[in-house]
């Protein structure tokens, strides 16, 4: 029975000769255990000159925009058709462009004077849009002028809702540049940043017009929570507005 022989240790010379290979396998082991970190970095470093440039990013973005616009148009058409099926809209909408000839955006009254009136087909109660969203409603018309009560005016009450949580509220101007949104429920589940649009149930303004963004929420207000809304349309800067008239 042959004696159990201990395996011979490799000689120092052999280890010296094989050391490059040992180092290589050590490196490969490191790569394996780090899940390829070094390899990926190396690849990134080498391929950097061939990465997609800014031009390509712009193409993609414009393509995305085109896609968004097309889908928006489609959805609007679809929405109109469905609303027609539901008999929600009682008359055809028409948009009339009017210049702003006087502006009083702060003070005891907050109103605009438009340079078009009943001769152009405007009526009291029509919603007024500016670039950015709804800004107010027409209060009175003369043959060539119309005065608009802004959403920030204390006399303005418009039914709105928060699209994300689908909660209704009454948007009331308080004389400052930011109107207050008073909710109807105890727990509206809204948070700052939510977008406020005109209520789909409103009989006064067309549905789903952008109004603004919730800036802060006061949960402890009585009788129901309140939120401060920043309007999305810059009232101080509008020169031309669009009046949405309804022909019954």
């Amino acid at each position, binding site marked *: 029975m042959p004696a159990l022989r201990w395996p011979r240790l490799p000689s120092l010379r052999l280890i010296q000769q094989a050391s490059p290979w040992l180092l290589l396998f050590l490196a490969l082991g490191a790569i394996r255990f780090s899940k390829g970190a070094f390899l990926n970095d190396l690849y990134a470093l080498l391929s950097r000159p061939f990465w997609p440039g800014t031009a390509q990013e712009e193409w993609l973005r414009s393509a995305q925009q085109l896609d968004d616009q097309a889908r928006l148009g489609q959805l609007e058409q679809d929405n109109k058709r469905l609303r027609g099926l539901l008999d929600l809209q009682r008359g055809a909408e028409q948009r009339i462009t009017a210049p702003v*000839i*006087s*502006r*009083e*955006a*702060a*003070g*005891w*009254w907050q*109103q605009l*004077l438009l340079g078009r009136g009943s001769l152009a087909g405007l009526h009291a*109660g029509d919603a007024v849009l500016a670039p950015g969203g709804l800004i107010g*409603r027409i*209060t*009175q018309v003369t043959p060539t002028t119309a*005065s608009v*009560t802004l959403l920030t005016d*204390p*006399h*303005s*009450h*418009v*039914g709105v809702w928060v699209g994300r949580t689908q909660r*209704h509220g*009454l948007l*009331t*101007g*308080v*004389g*400052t*540049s930011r109107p*207050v949104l*008073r909710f*109807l*429920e105890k727990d509206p589940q809204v948070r700052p940043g939510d977008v406020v649009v005109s*209520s789909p*149930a*409103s*009989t*006064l303004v067309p549905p789903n017009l952008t109004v603004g963004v919730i800036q802060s929420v006061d949960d402890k207000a009585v*009788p*129901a929570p309140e939120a401060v809304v920043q309007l999305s349309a810059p009232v*101080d800067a509008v020169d031309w507005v669009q009046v949405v008239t309804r022909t019954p």
Partner: protein
Amino acid sequence: MARLHQQRWCVATALLVPWLSLASPSLVKVAGVSPSWAVLWLLPWALVDGPVSGALAGLGLALLLDGLHPGSLSQIPALVLLGWWWGRIGRRGRPIERSFNLGLLALLGSLALNGTLWLQLALLAWRGGRTSGLAGDSAPTQVAAGMEVGADLGVDPGLFATPGWHLSDLLAAGLHTLLAQTLITALLAPMLCSLLLLLWRQQSSTLRG
């Protein structure tokens, strides 16, 4: 006795007040609030032309300005009283010439004007009624629409009956308007009112002489 009101073009300058209120030049605004052009015009007029003419001018101006704004707030009481008061000041004692005095009178006038407006809003809010002609037709419709929605969602319809204005709103927005308008009116008064005062004095002395 001065007879400024007999000169038609002098009376016609009052039309500058609604014109400036409508144009609301952005150069002379503080925090978006225009000065009270009515106070700036009425002060020199009442000082030169006496209490009765001042009160009547105030009434006329207030009627014009109330016509420009929707709602039931009125500037009539403040402007009539200011016209009367400034007319009496102009009649009694030495004539007011120094621009500091004009600035102080305009400051007090603007404070009184804004104070009455604030008081009216506070009364309307306290009464709990909707405060405007607009609300007259829109609020009930809105409330009715809301009630339909509210009934669907199981909301207490009584929530809709709460007034638009709360006292905290009044304090925030009203104080801001009051301070800004008083400040800019009192700053402009020494410049504009002293020029107007000179003009009216010259006119009335040529009329008298």
